[in-house]
């Protein structure tokens, strides 16, 4: 009537109150850690993808420690350098809306540049260029849209450039949600409109970006750039990478804190589990031994029993974390990771399974848990049955 498997489930059931308690706490801990892990992994991947699209060199103009606009003559100058495959001037800047203490990032796009146009067409499905250019238009990030909606700017918004004139720009469309990590507070508009709103001259750029296809030419191009002007500052792709890594490490600190707190909670469970291998367990083991079960068979039974418990808790934790992060967009935790500094972010996370870390997390839970069970159980198992049952 009873196979070993039946017995296993009966034993699990017979300790249901204790097992449910442990199961719930473990599931909660795994959910928390896996959620953090999923969010961190998603942000990291997004940032790395963004990094991929960055230029090899960004050139800025500095004078007396102040960042100034770069003249467009530099573009013509840099394209002549051997190894440079593309040079592009960029126009962007911050637009500050004082009453709400809110910043927008205005980015000017030169739609006559083939590459810019193709990137924009990739980003905005069904972009009608004619319509976009027929009047002064802009494409806005999701955070900006929310702000505009709140103040009833449904069709257009009137900017106030530094010369205090009024610049009415129509809302063409919203950036897709996938771009929210970077583009949440961004406004894209035709480059001449952006220059006007930001108070830049017609022949000026915010900075200039360069691409160098051949990696071996990088060093030489950098040297030429340094020598070309005394007031030049060069930001390499690797510098941007360092910035992202630092940013991510800072977020990683939060992850580490949560991880340590969870481990602390887990160690309390282990201690509890270690100390409450109860009289009931002892009696159970003694009964089984009395009926002819060998010590190693009992240990095996108990390992499988607890292994099942922690494995199911782990799986449930990962599933809950998946639902929490990717279906419900991680309320609360998202705010910790992305912050609220400017506009509320509308990032939706994407699943990038990090099998190595998930496996590590599994082992971090399973091995100490099983050890905390095994040591007291082994002690009971090798104690004379007579001593246990009295």
């Amino acid at each position, binding site marked *: 009537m009873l196979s070993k498997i039946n017995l296993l489930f*009966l034993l699990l059931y017979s300790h249901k109150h204790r097992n449910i308690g442990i199961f719930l706490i473990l599931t909660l801990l795994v959910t928390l850690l896996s959620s953090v892990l999923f969010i961190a992994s998603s942000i990291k991947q997004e940032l790395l993808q963004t990094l991929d699209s960055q230029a090899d060199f960004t050139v800025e103009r500095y004078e007396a420690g102040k960042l100034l606009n770069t003249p467009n003559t530099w573009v013509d100058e840099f394209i002549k350098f051997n190894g440079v495959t593309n040079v592009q001037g960029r126009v962007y800047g911050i637009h500050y809306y004082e009453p709400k203490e809110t910043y927008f990032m205005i980015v000017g796009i030169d739609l006559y540049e083939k590459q810019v146009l193709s990137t924009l067409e990739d980003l905005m499905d069904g972009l009608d260029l004619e319509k976009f250019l027929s009047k002064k238009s802009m494409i806005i990030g999701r955070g900006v849209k929310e702000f505009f909606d709140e103040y009833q700017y449904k069709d257009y918004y009137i900017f106030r450039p530094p010369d205090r004139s009024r610049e009415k720009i129509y809302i063409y469309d919203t950036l897709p949600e996938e771009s929210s990590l970077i583009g949440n507070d961004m406004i894209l508009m035709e480059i001449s409109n952006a220059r006007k709103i930001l108070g830049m001259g017609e022949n000026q750029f915010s900075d200039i970006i360069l691409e160098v296809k051949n990696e071996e030419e990088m060093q030489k191009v950098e040297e030429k750039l340094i020598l070309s002007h005394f007031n030049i500052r060069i930001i390499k792709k690797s510098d941007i990478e360092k910035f992202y890594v630092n940013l991510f490490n800072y977020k990683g600190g939060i992850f580490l804190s949560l991880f340590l707190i969870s481990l602390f909670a887990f160690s309390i469970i282990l201690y509890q589990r270690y100390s409450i291998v109860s009289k009931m367990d002892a009696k*159970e083991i003694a*009964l089984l*031994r009395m*009926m*002819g*079960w*060998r010590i190693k068979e009992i240990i095996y039974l108990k390992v499988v029993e607890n292994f099942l418990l922690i494995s199911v808790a782990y799986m449930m934790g990962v599933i809950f974390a998946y639902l929490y992060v990717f279906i419900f967009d991680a309320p609360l935790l998202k705010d910790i990771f992305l912050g609220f500094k400017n506009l509320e972010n509308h990032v939706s996370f994407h699943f990038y399974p990090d099998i190595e870390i998930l496996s590590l997390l599994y082992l971090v839970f399973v091995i100490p848990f099983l050890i905390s069970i095994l040591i007291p159980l082994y002690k009971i198992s090798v104690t*004379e*049955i007579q001593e246990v049952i009295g």
Partner: protein
Amino acid sequence: MIEIKELCKIYDDDFYSLKDINLLFKTGELSLIYGESGSGKSTLLSIIAAISKPTSGEIRVDGENIAAYNDYFASSYREKQLGFITQEFHLFESFSVAQNISVALTLSGISLQESKEKVLNIAKKLGIEHKLQSKISSLSGGEKQRCIIARALVNEPQIILCDEPTANLDRSNALKFIEILKEIKREGKSIIVVTHDTIFDNLDIVDARFKIKDGVIE
């Protein structure tokens, strides 16, 4: 046949729980070990059951010294040759009666159908077949005792050890237990009963009586 030679059990280096025990239990006989509480009779029974190790001496069961067995052989001996009826109701409280009885068959390797039949047969024999699906907590003391007996017998062992089997039973249930013992004896099994209950005095089914006092057979 169980033969005990020069058996000693010492606790804390100098306390003799059992001292120089020499006994012979013949196959098919019902033997009684009686004495006062703390005399060492339960310790003796636990050593015969291989659930406790003697400090010195031998216990030969059909010629094999079980005192020298390691866990593997001792477990095998308990599984195949022994049925243990305990004084306390040592049962899995959250299991049903049927599940409690069949725990003893989990290692036997028999099919579930065969196991079911064996459980049903033994339950019928002991009059608890109507309680098979009941939880242990819902049973009376006498029913719990019969459940323990059923578990001890379901594997058809040749040696039955009873440790104070009537200690937690009222007189009517104790008499019923003696009837069951008679039945077991008729099947040719060796039975060793450890008790201080006077109900066993003058019982004609008892073949041998051993009085134990302060760890020594008198």
